[in-house]
């Protein structure tokens, strides 16, 4: 069923009784050309692009819970392509370009909203770092502007310009950055993949990876054995656990990152703003809630919940940036499990095991990468070679010393 204003009108007049399921609930077939483990944003996008762009339709997405139950449904919905390193920047820009045409492409309004992402700076050193970053973006044709204090003040007059411990000097603005309604991304990809023949199988947990003669032949699941040609892991947050089923150890740790939403307020923050003197970033949703977050809790965790101390740190930074938040109330906090790689950048690669492919290590940048991650992973699975913007996301880069360390923190995942 195609979605449009007309379909809403006609269905509305008929009492909305004729809407059909957005995707099927098929039983698993005995064998697929490609099985994707993980029905989150990246797994569903991979399936979608496999079917749509590469003509591979005998595909199953196995999800242990419900569609979009992982990080695609528990992030702060930000999209941006303001990356520094040549190995990262073109990939995230590809993602941004895919976001820009996504809704028309999959006929689902995910509310891709390019209201801008502004990174504040508070010192000369930060300004110089943003100058370097903004210029790297410009070199790749990505939009970037360096704003001075007066320009930031015109945009966001309610930031603390006058009593701040670390006065705001300016900011790096990417106008094409913004937010997307996160759940809708999962749903849109699921619906799009399903309509092209992909089987999305929920409540189906992978419990084993079967190997014969050193190559993967299928997976044991809570719904029985399913054979496959290629097995594609897209289970960020649980990558280590899934890879372990194939005997692989990864350069990844699972960490909890909290996110928050305030009570609904009449919109006053248009785009995304990040604080430069503490861990805080915020945007305001189309429902009016301030959606915000801060830093990792700092310890390995598989529990989707965080610590009060981190909540306090985030709130402190928030009020330092916007003093008027003081009497605004925080409604809800939640935690997502991040696949923190050892250099802060992702992995899209084949593995040393035949037929086993890995998409992992997204740290806390996974949501914005969803379209490009799906597209590039599909490219790798269908063509056997990496898509050029994802060529640096090699699994062996750690061992060989070709790291993609945007923050320069080294092999310390909780600092990325």
């Amino acid at each position, binding site marked *: 069923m195609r979605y*449009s*204003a007309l379909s809403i*009108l006609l269905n509305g*007049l008929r*009492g909305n009784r004729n*809407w*059909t*399921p*957005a995707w099927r*609930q098929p039983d698993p077939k005995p064998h697929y050309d490609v099985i994707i483990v993980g029905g989150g944003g990246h797994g569903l996008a991979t399936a979608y692009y496999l079917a749509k762009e590469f003509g591979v339709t005998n595909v199953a997405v196995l999800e242990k819970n419900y569609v979009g139950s992982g990080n695609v449904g528990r992030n702060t919905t930000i999209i941006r392509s303001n990356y520094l390193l*040549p190995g990262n920047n*073109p990939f995230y820009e590809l993602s941004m370009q895919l976001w*820009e045409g996504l809704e*028309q492409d999959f006929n*689902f*309004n995910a*509310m891709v*909203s390019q209201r801008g992402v502004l990174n504040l700076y508070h010192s000369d050193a930060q300004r*110089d770092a943003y*100058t*370097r*970053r903004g*210029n*790297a973006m*410009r*070199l790749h044709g990505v939009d970037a502007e360096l704003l001075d204090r007066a320009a930031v003040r015109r945009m966001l007059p309610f930031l603390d310009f006058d*009593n*701040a411990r670390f006065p705001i000097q300016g900011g790096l603005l990417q106008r094409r950055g913004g937010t997307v309604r996160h759940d*809708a991304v999962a749903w849109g990809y699921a619906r799009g993949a399903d309509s092209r023949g992909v089987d999305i199988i929920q409540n189906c947990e992978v419990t084993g990876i079967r190997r014969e003669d050193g190559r993967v032949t299928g997976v044991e699941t809570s719904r029985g054995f399913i054979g496959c040609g290629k097995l594609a892991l897209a289970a960020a947050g649980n990558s280590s656990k899934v890879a372990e089923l194939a005997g692989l150890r990864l350069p990844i740790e699972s960490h909890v990152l909290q996110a928050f939403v305030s*009570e*609904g*307020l*009449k*919109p*006053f923050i248009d785009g995304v703003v990040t604080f430069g*003197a*503490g861990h805080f970033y915020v945007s305001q949703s*189309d*429902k*009016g*809630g301030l959606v915000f977050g801060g830093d990792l809790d700092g310890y390995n965790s598989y529990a989707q*919940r965080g*610590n*009060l101390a981190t*909540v306090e740190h985030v*709130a*402190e930074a928030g*009020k330092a940036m916007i*003093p*008027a938040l*003081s009497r*605004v*109330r925080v*409604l809800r*906090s939640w935690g997502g499990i991040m696949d923190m790689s050892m250099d802060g950048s992702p992995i899209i690669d084949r593995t040393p095991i035949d037929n086993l492919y890995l998409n992992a290590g997204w740290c806390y940048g996974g949501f914005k990468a969803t379209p490009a991650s799906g597209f590039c992973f599909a490219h790798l699975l269908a063509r056997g070679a990496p898509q050029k913007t994802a060529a640096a996301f090699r699994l062996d880069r750690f061992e*060989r*010393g070709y*790291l993609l360390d945007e*923050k320069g923190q*080294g092999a310390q995942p909780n600092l990325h």
Partner: protein
Amino acid sequence: MSSYRLPNLGLVSRDTPVSFTFDGKPMQGLQGDTLASALLANGRMLVGRSFKYHRPRGILTAGAAEPNALVTIGHGGRTEPNTRATMQELYEGLEAQSQNRWPSLDFDLGALNGILSPFLGAGFYYKTFMWPAPLWEKLYEPIIRKAAGLGKASYEADPDAYEKSWAHCDLLVIGAGPTGLAAALTAGRAGARVILLDEGSLPGGSLLFETAMIDGKAAAQFARDTSDELRSMPNVRFMMRTTAFGWYDGNVFGAVERVQKHVREPVPSLPVERLWRIATKKALLASGAEERPLVFGGNDRPGVMMASAMRAYLNRYGVAPGRATAIFTTNDSGYTLARDLEAAGVDVAAIVDSRPAAGVDYRGKARLIREAVVCGVTGRKAISAIEVHRGDRTESIAVDALAMAGGFDPIIHLACHRGGRPVWSAEKTAFLAPGSLNGLEVAGGAAATSGLAACLGEGIAQAQAALEGVGLRCPPMDLPKVEGDDAAYSSNPLWSIPGVKDKAFIDFQNDVHLKDIGLAVREGYGHVELAKRYTTTGMATDQGKLSNVNAIGLIAKARGVSPAEVGTTTFRPFYTPVSFGALTGAHAGHHFQPVRKSPLHDWAKKHGAVFVETGLWYRSAWFPKSGERSWRESVEREVLNVRKNAGLCDVSMLGKIELSGSDAAEFLNRVYCNAFLKLPVGKARYGLMLREDGFIYDDGTTSRLAENRFFMTTTTAYAAGVMNHLEFCAQVLWPELDVRLASVTDQWAQMAVAGPKARMILQKIVDDDISDAAFPFLAAKEVSLFGGALHGCLFRISFSGELAYEIAVPAGYGESVADALLDAGKDHGIMPYGVETLSVLRIEKGHVTHNEINGTVVPADLGFGKMVSATKLDFIGKAMLQREGLAASGRPQLVGVVPIDPKHSFRSGSHILAKGAEATLENDEGYVTSSAYSPHVGSTIALALVHNGQSRHGEEVLVWSGLHGESTPARLCHPVFFDPQNERLHV
């Protein structure tokens, strides 16, 4: 006006009237009122508008779950949007404004959305607004955003104070209702350290509107007496107006105390809110139960209220809900309300009971309609009649208030904050807290226990069990005697109601109604999480307190399964919303982070320094002189003066670590990549510290003051990190080494004295001979000053490239020594200089800082390749440094950059392109890490990291900053611009 106030009923103070305004209209309430009870007493039924359809809304509850009666109170920096009128205590002068309406609450154009509702069902926006694509940001979204949100936040800073506290106890009791009071009393009498908290303003919970007698006293009196006893116990902390909002690891609870939210003008010496972190051995959740709404048409209209809320307004606040009421009930609690209403003289027109028979013997005057439901109401801004559906007949009964009693759901929010999932009990027909919670028990209404006596008994028993668990003995407690309690009930849930025509709401605030759930299930969003996300049920400010269980019941019905199979969404902190102010405490404004000041801060201030934030430090940036018009002018003067005469710079904020022990040299040899084992006593050496992954971590000088004693300096930014790292190495990696570490950053005031005249100036205060022969470059030793009056450490090291020393003296003497040096150098032209000048001097000399040590460079990249010891068996980073990629061709390498035309300049962060190359990422050769105007060179100079830079000296390039529209022809060169032979260091 107060014609809804009943005489002689309730706990409000009749002789203390309180004036307030609602939407600018003056009204009067009584001391003890909430804003909600005062509004009701004034006959104000319509108090808010819903989110989506702008439906007129009244007051639904008498507590924390209120989804409808949200108002904005206060003004200016004290503006508080989305305040629940049911929780806000009335105070003199309170100003309340209704929200989400235009132009007015009574006439709200947004209500037109209701007419369009067939097209605005769950998730409609996912299916439209897609064409043409640019119109989303330009047209559709702005319209949606205009309609978004409820209250309006202030732009102004909050004038009030907040604070945070820790508390520790044996037993934390959450909720001071009958269960909690009994538990706290039991534990208190046993001598345990008890904290009892409750979100309300008066202790007692349901006892405040209960009509039963306990130990021969009225319930409210029993609550008062018990509270008095508890307050008299030194081992009990009794906190009212305090909400436990989250349960965290280690049995720590977050709670927020509203210290001054019920007063007109907060006292500045007290916070308005206080955040508590309560660490407890055991906790008892006695949070009671929430009454479940009934999902019939128009169940959101002003005048429809929860039955228990109606009872609270009646018995606690002495407010009649209307002139003629009706009660729609699925259980016996409706009859208790009927009896109370009639006793207060309020007419009950009908009791509509969904069951064939009641469990109580009702003898009141109300008409009893059994096996019937209310399926709809008449009236928009206030109800005027209800539609009662029985069999296949519908009849209308005129009323102006309707109570709904749909049974009770235990409030188990907190019990599920640490991963536990609620469990559906078929017996209790409710979701219960998960079992075997570590350190937390649930009792009373929160455990679906009904009846006063049972709750009191459970409170006592659970307190006894908890204390036994922590090794405390409890004396026996008598169970209070309860008379006249008819609150015990059992109930079968009534999920769906026949005959419904108008919208029947599940989530009131978010306007999720019955049909939305049906649509979600039909479209495949039947998983409880998907249904929540698709319809937004449970996502409003009340977090689904009233809506979740109904939504689950209705999803279960639509899917043909039991609520157990549907399960719940996840309960997350916070139980009720918590302000940024409370979470922030005192860390606001200028106090966001602590300030670190050098021991020479006041000295620098005295000499007119301009300060700059550097991490937590304030550093002197430059020292303007009168007549200088720009910082550039001051810095240029300072630079030239250092090169010509001498300058004095505060470097106290460098990290300083003292290492001692017989293995200290071996230890240093392992933490630095260059050799330290054979550093002679009395010598300083530049050291490069790597991370274990082979990249440079930090640099600094380390001096050997004695055979087994070293003095290390680190960069300012990494001082704490290096100390942690060294402690890791000493304690974890090589505990067998005899080395002790002490951070002495704050013990020393350290200053650089640099310039050709540095020695003659210093010699005036240093007793020891510091001639070049006696104290050559890189000498380091403890020295005597001022004829033995003071001792310090002197290092002949130079960041500026001049003859230079750093002298460290005990912090308290810093200012005197600095002044003495200025005095000693007066005739030699000494001047203070700041970090800006320091930066120019070091760039001229090609010295690196963390601008260059950016976490992704190895020693060879910075020209330090030869420093890396090839002979040492082991040092941190040695193994990983061998990786192919860390030695590959094309790595960024440190170079100097100068503009070809000295009149041109460029800035840090610009990128380097080969001459004539197009500005693309593929052609990116590197970037400018540091730049400054060099008075010595007479142009801008810079350091840069450029691919293969060391072999490209002399190459013409383009320095490009697209951000600024700048493109400057420049030349790569050796990174040392000044005195490349280091002659000036050795004079």
